[in-house]
């Protein structure tokens, strides 16, 4: 009997029930999919960390290992149970033997024991050690494709002439080809001297990997190595602590996707609340009647609680199933970013976690409508309306508890207390700002007199006491503004980093030019170009405070701990302006070495004029005082240096030179060929092609973000639909009233059109203001790209939003308008 009553109730309000179920499902889909995917990716990355890093203990440096470290390594390798392998990684241009083609490649010179962990699969199926003999290389298929070579052909690598012996089909130790700067070329360690890339000053990453048969020795080994390593230059890590680019990339990506998922969840929650409110509103009279015939509020509460539980279970099942299905799509969506060894799967934990999250969200967003049942007085049987009831104190308590619960959930999902709290505060702030804006707009409308009749009616309906226009506008505007902000951010990042490639910007970078090669380099080019000195160094302290490596590395952006390139003026810095200090290097009052810093690095380290910076230039300390701060006026594509010194203080430091050339596009590869065959140690980077590759990466990221943002759009749509359902009775009443008084359909349509237009415009205007502001702030302060408001596109989007609101609003009313009013008269209380 009870169940039948329940089912009857659901069938009677099936549209509202459907929207509610969809909202519950939607709130879970993203969270479940992302959490489950995150777990899989982490398992793939961390679970296989040994394979990814190639050893139990890894030592890395940008310089040849120091004598102390070399000795420590030798001692360690002499012990039983310890095996080791070295590698030297560098980018260099490889060429066809006939000099008819060249290609920037990621060259990795490896010792025979390599790889200690993980695997390298070759096309022939043989083992790497067997194939990679002196005089031979194995290469990624792209090398053959792009150079038009085949196995057995010769390849020029540096000064060496090597034979291509095999193809690499899979490599577990690849540091993810995020930017495909160069396909892999593996060279045997015996050929290190033949290719002569290391001695010639190429930028080399030195690496030693150790395999310990006794896992308990790891900590002791690390300690032993660290004791001998040059601090800040030779980094010792275990497979578990070594950060990887992939992991960082995914940490950032998942963090962002979690943000979107949480936002979608909140929007869907609002949808739940309004569809449930709509459902209950339709039941108000039957609730009142039940009360009048003696049902107590416990009975009613139980009844509707059961109803909500039934519907949300259905939604949760749909949502979890949808999330699992969605995860399969991610493989295509994320494409080349994914680690090779990824195994997709949904664990019970994911499902339980999804259910718990779902329940919490449902509980929070259904509390208020359910609590409102108790407010329905039997009197509503007669008057029909219970709007505008005052809120009880316990309502606020409920609300506060719910907010707390939700806050905890958000913090947990984002795994970051500060960001989670800021997000919650941001959303509350957003709602507050939008409510204020809407309140202001409505108040302004109220003032207007002498409007044409349809417009006046539309305004009156919006201002009607108890009308939900304010909350509808607030939720729509919140959804819209976030969507708009995402769009603007994406457009600006694209424009800032990719599309705005200035026509006069250099398109070919040449690095690692040696001091004694400068003359010949200019001869080869046939012209004098500025050669920027590059001195590699680390910043160790600011005003005596050591830079906290661990804290710094946790940050999401650029870090002060990375290696910087110091330089001295070489001409060509005319695109920079001083923003602090009288000149680049004013007279040195304290007698300290002056240094001019760029504004972004100054901001990163909160550096001011007169601050004392300590550098470590490959083991040699240098103390300097900030003498000026510069800012850039041109695109990042022009060369720039964070730290500039007077030449005399760096003249003795080990240095290479760097040139940024502007070459007609069709001559780039010919010039690359000439440079590299003459100076094999010089690396060239075809920026045009790199920009194209970067564009592909950004597009892919944008696709991922848009994909997830579309769920937020869906949630917004559901909110709109549920708000239309919620006001169905009111709209029927309006249509019927207008009609019996002799209004034709044009009039009725006009009133509805205007009412929805106003709703849409209000939401649109609020979204425009908030979205533009948010995107501006993010671009300016976080990403530091010049902000372009993209007004045409913004207004286009806002118009689209408004049209969607109007279309949905009208669609809900057309059927009522075309029928004779008598049948609806009976429905009205």
């Amino acid at each position, binding site marked *: 009997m009870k169940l039948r009553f329940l089912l009857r109730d659901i069938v009677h309000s099936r549209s509202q029930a459907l929207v509610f179920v969809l909202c519950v499902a939607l709130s879970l889909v993203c969270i479940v999919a992302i959490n489950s995917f995150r777990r899989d990716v982490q398992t793939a990355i961390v679970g296989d960390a040994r394979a990814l890093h190639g050893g139990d203990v890894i030592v890395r440096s940008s310089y040849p290992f120091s004598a102390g470290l070399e000795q420590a390594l030798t001692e360690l390798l002499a012990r039983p149970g310890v095996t080791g392998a070295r590698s030297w990684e560098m980018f260099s241009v490889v060429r066809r033997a006939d000099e008819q083609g060249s290609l920037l490649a990621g060259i990795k010179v490896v010792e025979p024991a390599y790889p200690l962990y993980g695997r390298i699969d070759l096309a022939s199926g043989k083992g790497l050690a067997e194939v990679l003999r002196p005089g031979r290389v194995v290469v990624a298929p792209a090398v053959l494709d792009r150079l038009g070579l085949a196995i057995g052909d010769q390849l020029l690598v540096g000064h060496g002439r090597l034979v291509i012996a095999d193809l690499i089909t899979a490599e577990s130790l690849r540091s993810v080809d995020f930017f495909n700067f160069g396909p892999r070329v593996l060279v045997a360690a015996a050929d290190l001297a033949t290719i002569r890339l290391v001695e010639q000053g190429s930028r080399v990453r030195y690496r030693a990997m150790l395999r310990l048969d006794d896992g308990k020795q790891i900590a002791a080994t690390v300690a032993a190595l660290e004791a001998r390593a040059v601090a800040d230059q030779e980094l010792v890590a275990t497979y578990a602590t070594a950060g990887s680019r992939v992991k960082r990339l995914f940490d950032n990506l998942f963090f962002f996707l979690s943000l979107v998922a949480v936002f979608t969840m909140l929007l869907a929650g609002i949808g739940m609340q309004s569809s449930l409110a709509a459902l209950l509103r339709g039941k108000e009279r039957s609730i009142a009647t039940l009360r009048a015939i003696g049902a107590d509020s416990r009975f009613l509460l139980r009844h509707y609680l059961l109803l909500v539980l039934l519907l949300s279970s259905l939604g949760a099942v749909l949502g979890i199933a949808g999330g699992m299905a969605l995860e399969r799509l991610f493989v295509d969506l994320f494409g080349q970013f994914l680690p090779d060894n990824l195994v997709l799967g949904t664990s019970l934990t994911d499902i339980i976690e999804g259910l718990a999250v779902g329940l919490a969200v449902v509980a929070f967003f259904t509390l208020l409508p359910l609590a409102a049942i108790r407010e329905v007085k039997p009197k509503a049987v007669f008057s029909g*309306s219970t709007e505008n009831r005052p809120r009880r104190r316990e309502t606020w308590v409920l609300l506060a508890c719910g907010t707390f619960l939700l806050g905890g959930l958000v913090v947990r999902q984002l795994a970051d207390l500060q960001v989670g709290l800021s997000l919650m505060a941001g959303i509350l702030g957003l709602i507050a700002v939008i409510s204020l804006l809407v309140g202001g707009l409505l108040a302004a409308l109220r003032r207007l007199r002498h409007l044409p*009749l349809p417009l006046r*009616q539309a305004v*009156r*309906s919006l*201002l*009607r*006491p108890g009308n939900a226009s304010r909350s509808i506008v607030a939720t729509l505007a919140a959804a819209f503004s976030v969507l708009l902000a995402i769009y603007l951010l994406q457009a600006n990042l694209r424009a800032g980093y990719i599309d705005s490639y200035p026509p006069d910007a250099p398109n070919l970078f040449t690095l690692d030019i040696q001091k004694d090669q400068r003359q010949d380099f200019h001869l080869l080019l046939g012209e004098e170009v500025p050669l920027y000195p590059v001195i590699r160094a680390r910043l160790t302290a600011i005003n005596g405070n050591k830079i906290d490596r661990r804290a710094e590395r946790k940050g999401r952006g650029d870090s002060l701990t990375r290696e910087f390139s110091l330089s001295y003026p070489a001409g060509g810095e005319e695109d920079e302006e001083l923003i602090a200090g009288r000149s680049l290097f004013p007279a040195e009052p304290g007698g300290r070495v002056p240094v001019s810093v760029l504004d972004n690095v100054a901001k990163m380290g909160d550096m001011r004029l007169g601050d004392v910076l300590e550098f470590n230039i490959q083991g040699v300390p240098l103390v300097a005082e900030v003498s000026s701060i510069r800012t850039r006026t041109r695109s990042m594509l022009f060369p720039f240096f964070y730290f500039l010194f007077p030449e005399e203080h760096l003249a003795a430091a080990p240095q290479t030179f760097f040139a940024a050339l502007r070459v007609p596009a069709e001559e780039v590869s010919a010039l690359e060929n000439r440079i590299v065959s003459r100076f094999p140690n010089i690396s060239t980077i075809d920026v045009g092609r790199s920009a194209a590759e970067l564009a592909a990466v950004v597009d892919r990221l944008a696709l991922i973000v848009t994909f997830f943002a579309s769920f937020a759009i869906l949630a917004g749509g559901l909110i709109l639909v549920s708000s239309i359902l919620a006001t169905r009775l009111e709209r029927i*009443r*309006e249509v*019927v*009233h207008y*009609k*019996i*008084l*002799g*209004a*034709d*359909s*044009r*009039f009725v349509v006009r009133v509805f059109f205007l009412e929805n237009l106003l709703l849409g415009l209000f939401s649109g205007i609020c979204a425009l203001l908030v979205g533009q502001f948010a995107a501006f702030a993010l671009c300016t302060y976080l990403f530091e790209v010049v902000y372009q408001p993209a007004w045409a596109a913004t207004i286009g989007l806002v118009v689209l939003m408004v049209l969607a609101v109007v279309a949905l609003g009208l669609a809900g009313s057309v059927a009522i*308008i*075309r*029928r*004779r*009013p*008598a*049948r609806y*008269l009976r429905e*009205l*209380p």
Partner: protein
Amino acid sequence: MPILQAEQVSKEYQLDGRTISVLRTIDLDVARGEFVVIAGSSGSGKTTLLSILSGLDRPSSGRVRLVDEDITDLSEDQLAPLRNRLTGFVFQGFHLIPSLNALENVMFPAELNRDPLAREKAVELLDRVGLAQRQASFPEQLSGGEQQRVAICRALINDPAIIFADEPTGNLDSENSRLIIELLLDLQRDRQLTLLMATHSHSLSRRADRIVRIADGMIVGEERQAP
């Protein structure tokens, strides 16, 4: 020439595959200025008949003529000006527009009609029904009797030829009912209105020129009463 004419009007509903006849071949003429009461027990079809005669509903078969015009097949938009100028409605449930105050409710049909005198006429009508002080009140701030008086003013503002009233006193106590009835009858006499009213009320029926009794969707008797 009658102002309202129904010929062989029937109304059927389909319910779970069964056909329910609510009205069966009703013939009815109403003369200009006449006060006709439609009486009958609950469920006999009074409201349905009134809806069809006024054009708020469409008959399943038969024809309805209102002031020389056959309205049976008119579209909603063709009916709109007729509803606006020729007819007025008074319902048991008042049906005032909740977002408008009393004065604006009364003015509304005249404004639809672009009547420049809408405000003056509305003020005058509200004054006539004793609500001059309540012009700015919204429906929810008015009692049932007051709401019904506003509804009557609204029905009258465009000087209609005929008023349809469906149990106008159904929601009111006897004192208010009496007031409303007196008001309607006064107005009918003053303005030469035709008044077609569905009601259970005997006291109301007694004042009518003619009582049409229906039962089970059929006219089962007519009584003419001396004025």
